[in-house]
């Protein structure tokens, strides 16, 4: 039996079921109560020593884009939270990816399943891409100004209501050193290729 405070969440003989729900609760609690890191609802991969951060609402297509980036060789960091420190660097939060494609509904896969590895070190951010899936859309993102970039990051920050100053301070470090873009995308692989090339171009 699994409780959250006085509320019974689950009663089952299935140990895996209990552990899955417990993990989901623990992850949310850590994201909400963290004091020294800012948790942004986002997918994250590493490429050529830079992080690509993909903030988005649930079902905006983050996991599909993360999976496409991993298939192209990027290192896995997270498909749930970008964990950002006071210097604006991103740390790994590598839980298994939860794919939601019709053919793979609910299937959890690891970076290894997709032929790549999981990042271990914190990375500076190269690109933040707010990419929303829309069938048939072409990926032609617009670059956001620093103020709009911080605003869009705040819109996906878990503890923003409790610690807004901490979140804004972290984003003040991150945004000036990164390219922040926003747009709608169609096929994940097209946007993924664009993002990897953009990181390489910025590195010069």
């Amino acid at each position, binding site marked *: 039996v699994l409780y959250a405070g006085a509320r019974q969440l689950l009663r089952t003989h299935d140990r895996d*079921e209990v552990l*899955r729900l417990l993990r989901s609760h623990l992850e949310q609690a850590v994201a909400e109560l963290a004091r020294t890191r800012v948790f942004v609802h986002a997918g994250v991969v590493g490429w050529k020593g830079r992080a690509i951060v993909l903030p988005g609402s649930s079902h905006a297509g983050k996991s599909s884009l993360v999976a496409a980036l991993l298939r192209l060789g990027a290192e896995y960091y997270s498909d749930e939270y970008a964990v950002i420190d006071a210097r604006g660097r991103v740390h790994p939060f590598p839980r298994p990816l939860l794919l939601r494609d019709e053919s793979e509904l609910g299937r959890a896969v690891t970076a290894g399943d997709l032929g790549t590895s999981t990042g271990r070190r914190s990375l500076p951010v190269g690109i933040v891409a707010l990419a929303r899936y829309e069938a048939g859309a072409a990926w032609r993102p617009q670059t956001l100004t620093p103020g709009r970039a911080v605003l869009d990051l705040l819109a*996906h920050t878990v503890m923003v209501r409790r610690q807004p100053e901490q979140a804004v301070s972290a984003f003040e470090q991150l945004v000036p050193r990164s390219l922040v873009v926003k747009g709608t995308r169609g096929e994940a692989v097209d946007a993924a290729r664009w993002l990897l090339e953009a990181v390489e171009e910025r590195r010069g």
Partner: protein
Amino acid sequence: MNPRARVQGLVVRRLKDETLVYDLKRHRAHCLGLVTAEVWQACDGARTVAEIAAAVEAATGHVLGEDGVGLALLRLERARLLEGPRLPLPTSPARRAALRLLAVGSGIAVASIVAPTPAQAASCTPSGQCVVMPNTLCTGLPCCENVALHCTKKANGSNCSCN
């Protein structure tokens, strides 16, 4: 009464030409463009609208005029960034249309968001998707339509459900 900028309960940061404002009371964040931010800063309760227009022109080189300042004040008021009694809204459709036209060319802008709750900034499973998952793949995530429920195994069922 001359307009006065609200100062209490706000986190304010300057980011190049923009100003970011987080409202600690309403949990809304706003991004003010350069001109709007200058209008806001000039609202000290002593300056008239004409004097604010002059102050903004001196600071930025933008000639707003009283109409432009009036429009910026309406935007700032809508974002609850001014103190005191509400400003009178333009009543005639022609006047409102003129102000909208002015807004397009003048860069008078306030972009706003509502800060998410922790549950809003987390993954969830739509109940329609949850109930078609085989019960070996239940996500354990909150259900999007009611985050107090989670997508878990349904007793004696072959599929998951929001419980």
